[in-house]
Each structure stands twice: as structure tokens, then as C-alpha cells.
């Protein structure tokens, strides 16, 4: 009979430990959710900010045209000015 009571005490202690551990796991899981939501908001904002990246193609086109004009200008200067 005494062994049954000892087993009951052990079960009580195990239940307390188990509840404590499970509460820790649940608290950690609950803390992840708002962080994920915040990351999602930031990611959406970054994606929206990157919409202007497409303008880089226009910039590339402009730079090519400018360098072409620059080459023509240099050619004219090369013909107009004497060499050193």
C-alpha cells in the first residue's frame, strides 16, 4: 500500500513538471505568431518599395543614349581640336 502512495506522489510531481513544460512550449509558440505577422508586413512593404526597380531599365536606356551622345561629342572634339 505504501508503494501506491509513493507512486501517487511521483505522479503529482510529474504532472506539475509536465504542465510547466507545456506552458513554456505554448508561450513560445504564441510569441512566434506576432513576429511572423510583423515580418510579413515588412516583407510586403519591401516588395512595394522595389516596384521602382523597373525604372532601372529606363535608367539603363538613358545612360546608353547619354554615353552615345558623349561619344559623338568626343568625336567632334577630336576632329575640332588639335592633338597635343
Amino acid at each position, binding site marked *: 500500500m505504501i508503494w501506491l502512495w509513493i507512486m501517487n506522489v511521483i*505522479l503529482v510531481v510529474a*504532472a506539475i513538471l509536465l504542465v510547466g513544460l*507545456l506552458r513554456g512550449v505554448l508561450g513560445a509558440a*504564441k510569441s512566434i505568431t506576432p513576429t*511572423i*505577422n510583423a515580418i510579413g508586413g515588412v516583407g510586403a512593404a519591401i516588395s512595394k518599395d522595389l516596384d521602382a526597380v523597373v525604372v*532601372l531599365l529606363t535608367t539603363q536606356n538613358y545612360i546608353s543614349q*547619354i554615353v552615345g551622345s558623349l561619344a559623338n561629342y568626343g568625336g567632334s572634339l577630336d576632329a575640332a581640336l588639335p*592633338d597635343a
Partner: protein
Amino acid sequence: MSLAVAVMILLIVLIIAALALFLIATIVQLVKINRGLAVVIGAVGEIVAKTAPINGVLDAINSTLGLGSNLLEGLFVKKAGDDAGGLVESLFPGEGAKFLQRVGRRGPVVNTGEVYTRGVGILVAIGRTAPIGAAHVRAPQPATTVAPEPEPAPAEPPEPEPEPAPSGRISLRRRPDFPGTAAPEPAPAPPEPPPAPTGRISIRRPDFPGTAAPVQRPAPAPAASAGGGGAEAEEPPASPEGRLSARAKRPWER
């Protein structure tokens, strides 16, 4: 059933109930995390898709700008020759040696100062032969009421202006705006109304902020200028009037 057995059964039921409760709550939270990560992964996928062409575009822009830079630097070195480092040094102090190192040239860097005499001579020669240059480079008007005669056009295109120094060396000139270095200059003539275009050649003083009205120099002899030699470039001017100043051409200094 004894009391001890009943208590044991009750404890086991409580433990199983606590396990089920907390595990179910944890599963619910994990499901929420999964949904949030799905949203985040979508946004990250958009970021990756939008940033994918950046490397190629930037590489193309850099290569194009590098070509343009090499073209201009090569043209500058070709036209200025040994004076290239000095010209860069005069405009951006401390950059002349770096420029020479970048273009792979060696030699001393001599600051050409505010006035590049050889460039002035070249531009004067161009201005005498090209109509657009003559429109911008005018001759000084003598202080008389007699209308000057237009200069005859040169028979053939003149050659580049010779250097003021016979060895082609660059002479440094004193800047009048340095404190303690101002040389006594003759009193400038009172400003006159701008004369009517007569086709003669003169060089206007650049509009320095805080400087006096332009002073006109005496007109060169027609015989000397008709030959296309450029009398203005042969004799170095004693004052900044009539010089080309690279500093005055930079708009950010105003």
C-alpha cells in the same frame, strides 16, 4: 478499490487531460505560424523576383559608364598631352597625380593655374575660323568714334596656335584674388555700351562674382590677325581680362 488506487487513477487522468489541452493549444499556434510564414514567403518571393534583374542592369550601367569615362579620359589625354595632369590638378587640387596614375601616365604634375594658355590659343584659332566661334569671341573696340573696318577672312585655316613659351612649357600666373599677391593694375576704363557686332575678334572676361566691369584691351593690328596667327594668344595677357577660366565655367561655384 482502495483510496490509493483511486487517487492514482485521478492523477493519471489529470496528466492526460493537461497533455491534451496544452498540445492542442500548441498545434493551434503552429497552424497560425504556418499561415503567417506562407504570407511571408509570398512577399519574399516577390522581393526575389523584383531584385533578380538588378545585377545585370547595374553591370550594364557600370560598363556603359566605364566606357564613357574611358572615352573622355582618353580624349582628354590625347588633346592635353602632358598638360592633362596639371589641368586636372588646377581644377581639383590633389587629383592630378591620381588621374595620371589612373590613365597610366607618368611625369610631374604642374598646376596650370587658372588660365591654360595653350587652350586659349586653340580656342582663339577656332574662333577666327568658325562662324560660331567668331560670334562668341569678339574683338575689343578702340575708344574712338570711327567705325572699325572688318577684318578680312583668312585665306586658309590657320594652324594651331604656337605656345607662348618656345619650349611649350606651361607658365604659372599669379591670381589677382589671392590676398597679398594683387599686382597694381592700371585703372580700368569706364564701361562702355556694348558695341555693334563688327566681325572683329575679342575675348570677353568671364563673369566672376565680385569682379569689376570688363576692361577692353587695345585691338590688335589687322595685319597680325589676318594671318591667322592669333596675336592674343602669342602675347600672354597681364591680367585676367580676356582669359579663359575653367573655374568660371563651373556653375556650382557661383
